[in-house]
């Protein structure tokens, strides 16, 4: 039985591990290599690494750091940040990254998704959409949430699938760090619209929120930052991640009838 994936999502800023709220107020959380090592010891399903500076500040891809992080991972790693060409994506795959996320560049130039799929195979091409969903409707943003595009996430996700993406990650800007639960409505619509795997990031405050996502969307990727790096009311930094048994229970509870 294929299981849903529970994925720690780690943000990099100037080589440090940070955590944001609504894509702002980056708080220092620690050393990325150390964190990856701990999640590897805890046998995490996958890990997602996002370099916030690579596109927004224009620092580009830190291949040395990415390669070190991939070497520490005994689970698959997805890297997102600053990838603009199929060559860059291929280089990341060759240094040990299983999946590479395209974000800003794919919005500006959707054909990039096709080029990447042709060069490394669709299983390694992930499209990451930063989404703001408010009363005025929903929209994909780029450059770490600083630029609106007017594009609808589900419409673009379908286009990405047609072009050869192997996975779509929805990152909810307005839920980031807020611990209010996942955007179930958007994920349900996305799951019904796509044939490729989907992953949700942003809003998880507890494992109950994760179970809620599984219950409504089924076998899906559930990614979270705060949930796995903060502890308690004052957000003390403490890395935690459920055991295999706890993960199995979480999934079986979510699929059993109420």
């Amino acid at each position, binding site marked *: *039985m*294929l*299981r*849903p*994936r529970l994925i720690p999502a780690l943000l990099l800023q100037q080589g440090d591990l940070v955590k944001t709220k609504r894509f702002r107020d980056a708080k220092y959380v620690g050393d990325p290599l150390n964190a990856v090592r701990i999640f590897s010891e805890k*046998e995490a*399903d*996958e890990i997602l690494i996002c370099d916030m500076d690579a596109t927004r500040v224009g620092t580009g891809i830190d291949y040395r750091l990415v*390669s070190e992080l*991939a*070497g*520490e*991972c*005994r*689970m*698959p790693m997805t890297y997102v940040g600053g990838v603009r060409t199929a060559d860059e994506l291929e280089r990341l*795959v*060759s*240094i*040990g990254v*299983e*999946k590479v996320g395209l974000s800003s560049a794919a919005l500006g130039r959707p054909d990039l998704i096709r080029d990447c799929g*042709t*060069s*490394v*195979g*669709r*299983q*390694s091409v992930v499209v990451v959409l930063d989404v703001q969903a408010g009363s005025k409707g929903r929209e994909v943003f780029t450059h770490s949430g600083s630029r609106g595009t007017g594009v609808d996430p589900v419409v673009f996700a379908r286009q990405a699938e047609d072009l050869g993406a*192997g*996975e779509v990650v929805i990152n909810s800007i307005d839920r980031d760090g807020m611990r209010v639960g996942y955007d179930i409505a958007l994920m349900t619509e996305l799951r019904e619209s*796509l*044939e*490729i*795997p*989907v992953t949700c990031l942003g809003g998880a405050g507890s494992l109950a929120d994760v179970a809620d996502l599984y219950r409504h969307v089924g*076998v899906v*990727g559930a990614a979270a930052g705060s949930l796995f790096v903060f502890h308690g009311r004052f957000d003390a930094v403490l890395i935690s991640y459920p055991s295999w048994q706890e993960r199995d229970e979480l999934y079986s509870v979510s699929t059993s009838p109420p």
Partner: protein
Amino acid sequence: MIGILDYGLGNISAFLEAYSRMFIPACRVTDVQTLGQAERVVLPGVGSFDGAVTRLRSAPYFGELVERVVDDHILVLGVCVGFQMMMERSEEGSSAGLGWIPGEVTFLDSKEPGSRTPLPHMGWNDVVVNSDSPLMSGLDESRFYFLHSYRVVTEDVGTAIATTEYGSPFASVAGRENVYGTQFHPEKSHHWGLSLLRNFAGLSPC
């Protein structure tokens, strides 16, 4: 010494890291000299079938590798696309495979109506062992990480060592004589993966 074949695709360092953790000597194979030091080899792989085959065929050690696998019967473990390359052909491309295991690679499409199996097959799935191969020793109830849209179909069902269910069952581990392969990624499958890599290191030469 276990040689990890480097031809520009696949996570070589993850295999080296895994073996180093278990204190099992392993090295990166980039040329004929480094291949000469290896008494068995791992053939990793990601990406498309044709891309991987083309790159491997242009590796400086390719001729030597074929001789040692086919004539000297050194043990080889193919992983993911590395496994698929060892078959004769693939629906994914037009290049000829290595032909070390009789059979082919087909699209992992569930023909059953109404079944919803997103592709690629991505994530942790059960691996059910159906032979007493020492490669899967101690792994009767195991799960591994999968990331693929194509699957191996062996000509001789007896060469399928383990199966996995996704839409329909397929061979997740196969092998005969000195040639083995896994569709999943043992180098990215935590303690189950380490056990399998340790088992491969301990297989008796043919």
